[in-house]
Every structure is written in structure tokens, then in C-alpha cells.
């Protein structure tokens, strides 16, 4: 299984994530409709963002699926995140009043 802390990048846009909480489902984590790869890997050439997965990712947001997986976006991009073809949901922080 993918390890917590693994950093993945999109092959078709600028999106990068770090795995906060792993689950088997992350084996098929995609950005822009294309499977994400470890940041150190080469991106496959000639791939493009699938228009069905082009709503984009937001910097600093956590995304989750129903299986308990959680990733944090460390670099935003135009592709959106999905497990297979199921989109990930944004997990909102419950902001505190500035208490630090």
C-alpha cells in the first residue's frame, strides 16, 4: 500500500499532493483523469487533461474519498483529483478564531 507521506504529481497538470492518510484506493489516484506518479518519476509524454476532470485543485486543501484516504494538495493545478473516475471531495478545515 502507498505510504503516508508519499508525494505524488500529476502527469498532465501542475498538481502535487502528499498522502496524509493512505488507503488501498490511492493505487488509482488520478489528477486530470490520469494516474498520478511519485514526484521523482518521469511523466509520460503526450497525455492531456481529461475535460471531465478539469475543475482544478486548490493549494492547501485536503481531499478525501469514502475509503478513508486523504491527500493534501501542495501544488495547485488545472486537473481535478479522482479515484478511478470517482471525484475526491474537499475536506474543509473547521477554522478557529485566530487563537495562535
Amino acid at each position, binding site marked *: 500500500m502507498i505510504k*503516508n*507521506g508519499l508525494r505524488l504529481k500529476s502527469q498532465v497538470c501542475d498538481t502535487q499532493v502528499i498522502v*496524509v492518510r493512505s488507503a488501498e484506493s490511492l493505487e488509482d489516484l488520478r489528477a486530470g483523469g490520469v494516474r498520478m506518479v511519485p514526484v521523482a518519476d518521469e511523466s509520460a509524454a503526450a497525455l492531456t487533461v481529461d475535460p471531465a476532470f478539469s475543475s482544478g485543485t486548490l*493549494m492547501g*486543501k485536503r481531499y478525501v474519498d469514502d475509503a478513508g484516504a486523504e491527500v493534501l494538495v501542495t501544488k495547485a493545478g488545472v486537473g481535478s483529483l479522482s479515484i478511478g473516475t470517482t471525484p475526491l471531495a474537499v475536506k474543509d478545515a*473547521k477554522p*478557529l478564531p*485566530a*487563537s*495562535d
Partner: protein
Amino acid sequence: MVSDGQRLTVSELSELADGGAGVIASSGAKHVVYVGTGGAMLPLLLFASARAAVPLTPLNYRLSADGVRTLIGRLPEPLVIVDDEYRSIVGDAGIQVLPSAEFLHAASSADAAAEFADPEAVAVVLFTSGTTSAPKAVEISHNNLTSYVTGTVEFGSADLDDAALICVPPYHIAGVSAALSNLYAGRKMVYLTNFDAHAWIRLVGDEGVTSATVVPTMLDRIVTVLEESPFDGPALPTLRTLAYGGSKVAAPLVRKALSLLPQVGFVNAYGLTETSSTIAVLTPDDHRTALTSSDSSVARRLGSVGLPVPSVEVQIRAEDGTVLGAGEVGELFVRGDQVSGRYTGIGSVLDANGWFATKDVAHLDEGGYLYIGGRSDDTIIRGGENIAPAEIEDVLVEHADVRDCAVVGVDDPAWGQIIVAVVVPASAAAPDVEELRSYVRRQLRGSRTPDRVVFRNELPTNATGKVLRRDLVAELNSMKEHA
């Protein structure tokens, strides 16, 4: 970031942290220790150490040379980075000592380290303040800290003109969480390294500060200065939130601060080192509602620490482990991703289901508001009856002749312990002892009446405002022997 007149952008901080990580990695150290007053050094060292995948321990620079060297001796092969004024107390502890200025200089030209820390690895080790026992080394992982930050702060959520004034010490969990959460929010960070109420008030004006966190002793001094030299118009017009925490703030001081700063939203934050900072918050709305409510159960919430943060679960348990209901006093247990509960040399103290025993006496009200009654170690056992000092202190501090007070148990041959109230009078004239005793007796059960009342000009506290009860008890016990 603004610190001692220096200004750094976030990208400048990031570049310095990259170089700092290189300096740390090439030293071969397994740990980084920082002895100094903080400011920009704290966020810099937090990120430099993390990028070198080496844990950081900011130490209390007010400790004796012996104290500092003993703590450094408990950490593995550390690189010790030290501000010039504390160079002599460090001696030759650790594998290498590097003055802060030299570290900064080296960091500005070193190559970045290529490490990436395991999120489960220890990021920061903080020593507990040791007011009730010897300091314990709390291990806080990257995951503990990021869970706290991503769970309670929206990335980049601060307005462009937001500025946080940070004056909590670097070796306190609040110093660590302030550096991380304000940076994550994208809020300008203004550091004040040696707290002074006049300097604090001046900085709020000069830097357009919108939020700040203070410990009780700081709040007390700020309120005193504001009372002595009233502003033309509203005081501190840019300030929108003022958080207080670190230890208990007496209700009269909170009410005074609220009336002096009517436009400011007050926040009471409660947390422990072991929980990566805040686990319960009394919000500005909670303060306003409590202050104006005619319902006594709501008004009382001004003395609570508010509701637990959403990512943390809480339970109040009896000594036999039974989970207690609203209104029942027991020990506070907490659970959540931000809870470390792990100590160097001891390991994890979480129970099988992940719960951490805080050793704080507490109860919840019907609305889920959390009340902290002090450390269970401070509980007075008088004639077999358990008495939480906070219960008596909360009453006594409301008396007009009392500025501050601490209630402690002192050894007694007849009762085991007796209740001694140490009172700081509100004015030069000592209050009437019998009047204070009967004031408490009128509001609490008879067994809660202080057996003795003694007067002091001030209470002994540490830098975060915690009353040093052990010192008071030791002093009172030895006085008795000599009497």
C-alpha cells in the same frame, strides 16, 4: 515576518530554511537544540530542521546552566544553536555549538538538504514545564502538527492586512503552533521577543496588528497599562482578536479586559504540549453571550475553556474509568490525530483506544462546554476529601480586596493536608482574614473554607503564567517547621 526590526518575506524565509537544512544535515547531528529568545529564529529552525529530517527542541533560556545542560544531555547527538547572550550557559554541550548569527550566515549560502521527513517521525521535542514533576520530553510528530494546522486553519485564509503579534516563548507549544498556523493562514507574523506591555501596545499600533496571543501575566500587565494611560478614542483600534491561554486567567481580569477593549473578540484557548496545542476554544461570541446572559449557567461559561475543537474527542472519567456525564467532575481524557501522548524514554502513554489522560481535573456542562479545575496533582486531600484548588480560587479572586490568589495543600498532622490560600491583596492594606474565609464559606461547602490565609506581594509564576505551586507548598511547609 517582522522580528526585531528585520523583515522577511515567506520566500526569503523558505530560502533560509533550505540553507539552514543544509547546515544541519552537514553537521551530522541527530537533533537540533535552540537556546534563545526566538523571533524569526523559531520558524526558521522549525522548517530548517524539518527539511533536514532532524527533530528540533527549543529550550527554556531562563533555566540555569545546569538545567540547560542536563536537558541537552537527554537528547541524541545534538547541534546546539544559541543566541549570543546565552552562549555561556550552554558550555560545550552537544556535538557542536553554533551561535545563532553564525547559523544564519551559514544558512544564507549553504546548499539545501535533500531529505524529506517521514510524517510519522518526530518533528519537535518539547520539555514540559515541570511545575509538578521533573520535565518530560514530549515527542510531537509531523503528523500531529499538520493535523492540528490543516484541521483548524484554512490555507491562505488571512486577509492581506492581517497581522499576528507573537510574544509566547519559543520553547512553549504555543510558540510552535503560532509559527505554523499563522504561516499557513498567510498572516503577517510580528515577533516580540522580550515581552513588555508598553512595547506590545506600541507594536500593535506600528504594525497594524489584528490578532495576538498572550499568557495571563501578559494580559494582566497590558490591562494595567491601558488603565493607567487611557487612549483618546478606542484603545488598540486595529486589534480584532486577543487570545489568552497558557494557564488559567481569573474571571475578574477577563471581564476588565473585555470592558477596556469592547471592539476586540476574546478567545480562550486550552491545550497541552502533549496535544500539539489547542484542543478547546471559547470563542468571541461565547464571551459576549456569557457576559450579557441572565442565565447563570450561560454566564458561568466565561470561566470555561469553551467547546472542544472538531478534530478532538473528550471524555471525563472517574478514578475507576467510568465515563461521567455533564456536571460530574473527573479527569479529562482526549483523543485525536493531533494528540501525541508520547515521551522520550517512556513511549506512548495512550490507552488501547488512543485516549490520552491529561491529568487535568475537569467537567463538561449540559452544552458541552469544558471547565478545567487544575492539575490532579494539585488536588488537596483534607481529611479524606478531594478538593480542587481552582474551585476555591474562582470564588476568592472575585472578592474586591483580592487581586490574585493560589490555594494549596500544606501538610498537617490532624487533617493530612490543610487548605492554605495565598492572597495578593488588591491594595496596600491587607484584607481581613476572617472576612475572606467567611466569603468563601458563604458560597462553597464548609470543607472548602481555607484553614489559613497568607498574604504575598505576588505569586511565583513561570514564563507562561503558571503558578509555581510546588514552590509555594515547599515554602509554606518549611515555614511551619520553623514556627
